């Protein structure tokens, strides 16, 4: 196996399955990445408008008297994921300051679309109570109904609109 090239996707998937299973076995819960973003958002907003943030009908759930907002299992999971991703990219000489995009789009439109796509994802993950990791991967392997429906809808949404974003990627 050449360490500078991407690995066999099936092998990676199987190892990720083992990581997910290890999470079930040790913690009794799956993986996730969207609520840490929500927690970081809550902490950031708290520094600018504390009363407004802590009084918000949704964000108030993150403020507990006994525990800091970022003192959370998934926050540490995402921290670990950032370290692991960094380690892998470093080992494979893939750390490079760049903007990921297709050949027919310039930098600024691409960044605007990245922001827009992020906004959609951030909103959607809160609405659906999870993202591709916490809902789709975790829930689907537990054979949860909602997770399978959610995952099919992700692919449906992306395939249905891919045509309109072809200039961004192709």
């Amino acid at each position, binding site marked *: 196996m050449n360490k500078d090239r991407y690995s*066999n996707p099936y092998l990676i998937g199987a190892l990720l399955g083992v990581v997910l299973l290890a999470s079930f076995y040790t913690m009794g819960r799956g993986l996730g990445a969207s609520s840490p973003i929500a927690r970081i958002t809550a902490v950031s907003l708290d520094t600018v408008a504390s009363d407004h943030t802590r009084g918000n009908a949704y964000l108030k759930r993150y403020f507990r008297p006994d525990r800091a907002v970022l003192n959370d299992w998934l926050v540490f*999971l995402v921290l670990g*994921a950032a370290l692991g991703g960094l380690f892998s990219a470093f080992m494979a000489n893939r750390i490079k300051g760049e903007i990921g995009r297709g050949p027919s789009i310039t930098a600024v439109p691409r960044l605007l679309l990245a922001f827009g796509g992020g906004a959609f994802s951030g909103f959607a993950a809160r609405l659906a109570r999870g993202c591709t990791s*916490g809902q789709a991967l975790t829930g689907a392997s537990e054979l949860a109904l909602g997770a399978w429906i959610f*995952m099919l809808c992700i692919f449906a949404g992306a395939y249905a609109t891919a045509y309109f974003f072809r200039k961004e990627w192709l």
Partner: protein
Amino acid sequence: MGPLYKFGFFGHFSSLMVALVLGFWFGFLLERAGLGNPKKLTNMFYFKDFTVLKVMFTTIVVAMLGLLYFSLFGWIDFSKVYILPTFIWPHIVGGLLLGIGFIMGGYCPTTSIVATVSGKLDGLVFIFGMMFGVFAFAETFTSITGFYNSGAMGVVRLPQILHLPSGVIAFLVCLIAIGAFWAGEKAEKKFQDFEPEGAPTKRFKVTGAIILVILGLVLMIANPDKAMTKDQEKVAPVEKVVIEAPKTTETPAAVEKVPEVIIGDDEGC
């Protein structure tokens, strides 16, 4: 017997260390598969590269088989593994929106983090976008609370809906996965205009498919549901006490508390 944390084998601080270790491998593996690269991620929606499908579906199948075999062997108490309750309408709309966000932004939440640490500026911008999305959601939450809680079905698994044992569903999922992999590879052959990295040999693929079919078949015959219901029977008396308790004194308060625990978002994504 697992889940270790729920049986009190370790506390909160150790659980955070477990999160760091699991997260490390999670991020490491995503990066190794190339899922920190938005072109590779979105190429799936133009039928050029099905890495996303291959990684996701293999992960699901392996974790699913592992969970069911662990229950069968009595290594894990499945009733103590957190399952996110189904809210059918928010799941459908949320899924569609996340799909649009995926193709528009080039990432899903986890992959944007992996992209950012490998130096991709658009990954970082995507994360800022997500934060804005969370802000927008929080600001509009009071007007969409009704929709957020619509279609509540509680914790529902496919075996209950399809009236089939988990083992049979698991076998079907294995077959669907193999079918999806086959179709994905077929599409790649037709549309892929570059040399793929890390493509497995034919022998690897055939061996993998045979292993999946065998593991699925064994599960179908062994029926892990028997072991799982045994776990639930053990838990049942405790649940009964909880239900009966409110009758004696304060009914409304106790009833209100129950759904709050379930929808608490504490263990979900």
